[in-house]
């Protein structure tokens, strides 16, 4: 293969006179497009697997990464063949991405030095509890995925723990002590004392110490240090076994760190680990250092009432001051029983006579004091705060798929914070013994069975809330089931609030599905007629694991899922998959004119294929250059009233086979996407109702002349003419209208999974403000048609994926009209207030879907 490519390369580089290699170049281009498509499909497949509908194993992940590697090597070679080796730097770029991917798969990444010693909570790598510990990993997820307020801070990772043991030569000694305890030679108090003493006397290695001090010196005046051991807050609770130190001044952080480490070997912790049969296992502790919230009120929430008085309620425990009063059960506290269902009515409140409170001592540490007489029997939380905390706790439960125990605090100004969230530990006796789950579910009436495609597996229940425009979004009730026709990208904002999602259209590889997986919301897409048979306000239970929608709330099933079933999202294989995906799927290279649109700027596999695709297309766009290089290319000029001077290059099946000469008529177009777009572009009223009071053709030609001379990055890429490269199912159209530049790349295949429309729009004749206005207008209109739109200045990038043929065609027609409609808009958009008027005008002519 390599030899073949090499020979071919030689022929391209030194073409013999008269030798036509252009078709081969196109063959490479087409194969490159195919490889691009294959990689996109593999990425989509991997993404789908993270939704939990599939059973997969490590081998599958390794095989997929391997296939991607092979395809990308081919793509890099092909691009270099097409472009005379201008992108050899893609090879090191591939290595930068694949080397860590492959070490992830071998489970070796933590040894590779890529893992940080100390990292801020907001930037901590997700899905690495072996590095950051369970507690810190949860908090990082809460900050990044759920956007709930958590006090800022940093993590001293398990890497530092290992360094510390090594540096102080503690590993073998601890091991020997533990053995002598296990052999019954010494009791746990003696052993604990010895180990703890040697840890406290140890020295934190300088490389870590410097980092810790640097972090401790910025931000808060005082810190709270908490253990975050691997396994803690996961399946095992370790609740209260490890030390937390509050109100630590920056200079005290190193010492406090050692104290928290030492608590791994307290007599209680040792007994617990022995009881759990994990004494011999490798222990590693990360320590979480957070700004101390000098709380006015703090406490706990149990999302499941373990006193089992009310199964449909959660319980909030609250008291004055820092959290110890509640967490350590130091005295009577307030208790609020709150309904789990929105709007979270408070069913019952018990206001205790609160005796003591813990507060930060001015010189560090904590102090206990009496509660003042007027506050003893005062209510600790306002109704508003209770609702907010309840809704956060349920968000956490929905996300972690387990009943939660949430630590929270309210500061002096009344602002609420989440301090921790962990799986609630309760005896199985609390939950009534499970009947056969299959029999229990059989008692409920099923609304629909085996409908749709699973985007994220799980079970959720709530009232149906139908959303059809972004106006509906603000009134979307927390914990409702989102039912909608399309998977429009603007729905992303309500995904975290939804208990489940059902859509009529869309695919498991689409944007909304990706978001649903990020927030772990059970999602079914492609459920025909859902908006009709699931009316607003109806109570339903959605089981996407079995693809069943039940009428009403199936409590047994919900409880089974919450208590019995595996939260697959937290299984090591799923964590690994998500870590792989984070190096594969995100697209960072959006704007081809940005300075980082380079091989070096490629951070993910998606970036690399985007880059290659763009550069390959760009190369073909330089038609005069190509034509000069290759003889015998047949290019048609489209004959039409619409004065575009459009050239069409057919790569197979895109035009009438009877066509000859150099002229082509619109009715001879066979390419499905080209046909649809052209119908829009040349439709009645699109070009003739000319809003510009000058002779249109004259202006177009004058604009065309000056375009090439326009300074700016966008101009550089376009030195040719308007060109469409088509096949029967594919179109890549570069269109320059006046000063702005449209790119439409689309495929219409019988299999919707292969379909996409990609639209890029940039440039304009006026100042950037007006051009940005037009970008806003486009973004607004496009998102009504369910495009996912990104804008940056005057650049608009919109895409839509996996729609069936008819929907694709409709959208391309709309794009055609939009291209016509907006061609001169920047001139007319004098102020932001003009935008709605123009949007209205467009919708008047084109009813949104």
């Amino acid at each position, binding site marked *: 293969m390599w030899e073949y490519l090499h020979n071919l390369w030689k022929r391209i580089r030194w073409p013999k006179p008269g030798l036509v290699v252009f078709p081969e170049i196109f063959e490479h281009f087409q194969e490159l497009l195919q490889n691009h498509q294959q990689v996109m499909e593999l990425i989509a497949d991997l993404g789908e*697997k993270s939704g939990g*509908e*599939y*059973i*997969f*194993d*490590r*081998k*599958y992940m390794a*095989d997929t990464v391997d296939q991607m590697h092979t395809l990308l090597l081919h793509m890099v070679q092909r691009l270099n063949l097409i472009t005379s080796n201008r992108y050899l730097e893609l090879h090191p770029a591939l290595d930068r991405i694949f080397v860590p991917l492959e070490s992830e798969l071998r489970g070796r990444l933590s040894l590779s030095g890529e893992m940080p010693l100390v990292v801020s909570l907001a930037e901590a790598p997700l899905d690495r509890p072996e590095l950051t510990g369970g507690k810190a990993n949860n908090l990082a997820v809460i900050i990044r995925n759920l956007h709930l307020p958590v006090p800022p801070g940093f993590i001293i990772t398990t890497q530092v723990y290992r360094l510390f043991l090594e540096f102080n030569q503690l590993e073998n000694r601890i091991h020997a002590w533990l053995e002598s305890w296990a052999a019954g030679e010494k009791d746990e108090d003696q052993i604990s004392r010895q180990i703890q003493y040697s840890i406290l006397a140890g020295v934190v290695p300088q490389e870590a110490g410097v980092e810790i001090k640097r972090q401790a010196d910025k931000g808060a005046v005082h810190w709270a240090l908490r253990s975050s051991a691997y396994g803690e807050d996961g399946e095992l609770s370790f609740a209260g076994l490890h030390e937390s130190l509050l109100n630590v001044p920056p200079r005290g952080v190193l010492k406090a760190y050692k104290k928290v480490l030492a608590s791994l070997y307290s007599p209680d912790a040792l007994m617990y680990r022995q009881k759990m049969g994990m004494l011999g296992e490798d222990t590693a502790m990360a320590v979480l250092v957070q700004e101390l919230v000098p709380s006015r009120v703090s406490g706990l929430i149990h999302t499941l009432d373990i006193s089992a008085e009310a199964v449909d309620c959660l319980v909030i425990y609250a008291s004055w001051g820092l959290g110890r009063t509640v967490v350590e059960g130091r005295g009577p506290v307030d208790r609020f029983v709150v309904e789990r269902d929105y709007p979270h009515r408070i069913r019952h409140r018990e206001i205790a006579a609160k005796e003591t409170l813990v507060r930060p001592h001015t010189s560090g540490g904590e102090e206990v004091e009496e509660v003042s007489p007027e506050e003893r029997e005062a209510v600790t939380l306002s109704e508003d705060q209770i609702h907010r905390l309840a809704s956060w706790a349920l968000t956490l439960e929905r996300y972690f798929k387990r009943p939660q125990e949430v630590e929270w605090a309210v500061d002096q100004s009344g602002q609420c914070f989440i301090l921790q969230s962990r799986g609630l530990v309760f005896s199985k006796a609390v939950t009534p013994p499970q009947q*056969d*789950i*299959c*029999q229990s*579910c059989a008692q409920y009436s099923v609304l629909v069975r*085996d409908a749709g495609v*699973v985007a994220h*597996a799980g079970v959720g229940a709530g009232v149906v809330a139908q959303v059809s425009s972004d106006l509906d979004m603000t009134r979307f009730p927390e914990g409702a089931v989102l039912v909608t026709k399309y998977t429009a990208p603007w729905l992303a904002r309500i995904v975290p609030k939804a208990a489940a999602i059902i859509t009529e259209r869309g695919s498991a590889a689409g944007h909304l599905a990706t978001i649903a997986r990020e927030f772990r919301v059970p999602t079914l897409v492609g459920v025909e007629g859902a908006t009709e048979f699931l009316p607003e306000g109806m109570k339903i239970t959605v089981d996407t*694991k*079995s*693809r069943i929608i039940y009428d009403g709330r199936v409590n047994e099933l919900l409880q*089974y899922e919450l208590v*019995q*079933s*595996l939260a*697959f999202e937290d*299984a*090591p*294989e*799923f964590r690994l998959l998500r870590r792989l995906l984070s190096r594969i799927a995100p697209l960072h290279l959006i704007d081809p004119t940005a300075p980082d649109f380079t091989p070096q700027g490629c951070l993910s596999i998606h970036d690399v294929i985007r880059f290659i695709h763009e550069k390959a297309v760009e190369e073909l766009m330089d038609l005069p250059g190509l034509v000069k290089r290759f003889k015998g290319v047949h290019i048609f000029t489209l004959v039409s009233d619409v004065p575009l001077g459009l050239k069409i290059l057919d790569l197979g099946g895109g035009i009438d086979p009877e066509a000859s000469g150099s002229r082509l008529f619109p009715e001879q177009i066979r390419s499905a996407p080209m046909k649809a777009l052209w119908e829009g572009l040349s439709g009645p009223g699109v070009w003739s109702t000319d809003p510009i009071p000058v002779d249109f053709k004259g202006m177009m030609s004058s604009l065309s002349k000056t375009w090439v001379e326009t300074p700016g990055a966008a101009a550089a890429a376009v030195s040719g003419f308007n060109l469409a490269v088509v096949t029967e199912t594919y179109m890549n159209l570069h269109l320059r209208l006046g000063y702005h530049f449209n790119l439409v790349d689309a495929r219409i295949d019988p299999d919707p999974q292969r379909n996409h429309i990609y639209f890029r729009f940039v440039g304009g004749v006026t100042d950037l403000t007006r051009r940005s206005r037009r970008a806003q207008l486009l973004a607004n209109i496009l998102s009504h048609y369910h495009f996912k739109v990104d804008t940056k200045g005057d650049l608009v990038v919109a895409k839509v994926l996996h729609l069936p043929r008819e929907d694709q065609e409709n959208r391309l027609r709309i794009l055609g009209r939009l291209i016509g409609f907006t061609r001169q808009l920047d001139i007319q958009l004098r102020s932001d207030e003009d935008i709605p008027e123009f949007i209205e005008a467009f919708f008047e002519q084109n009813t949104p879907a």
Partner: protein
Amino acid sequence: MKDQLTIMVLDDEPIVCKRLKPALEKLGYAVDTFTQSVEAMHQIHQTAYDIVITDLKMKEIDGMRFLEEVKKQHPQTEVIVITGFATMETAKQSFRKGVFDFIAKPFKLNEIQEVVNRAAAKIKGAAV
């Protein structure tokens, strides 16, 4: 409650067992899972399962030997083989006989549920 069918799942990747168990329990089956083929082998000498779901490529005991043993001990047990896509064809060729069905990994929960339900229908049909 004798009409509850019993299923053994054997796969050395724990994730497969962890996910299959609840998925099949929800359909009303009693499910035992094993990640160690030696233990599973021991178990089939003690208990007759209605359905056995096994991977082919495993450490220790080879999946093929395992299912031969299952069939020898309990000829009426229906065996479902789950295997990687690459080894699918060889698996099919060597085991056309005696295996109820093959499923290539990765597979959807629905797919295996459907195959298991078919196997169950066959067993119940035979019992009538």
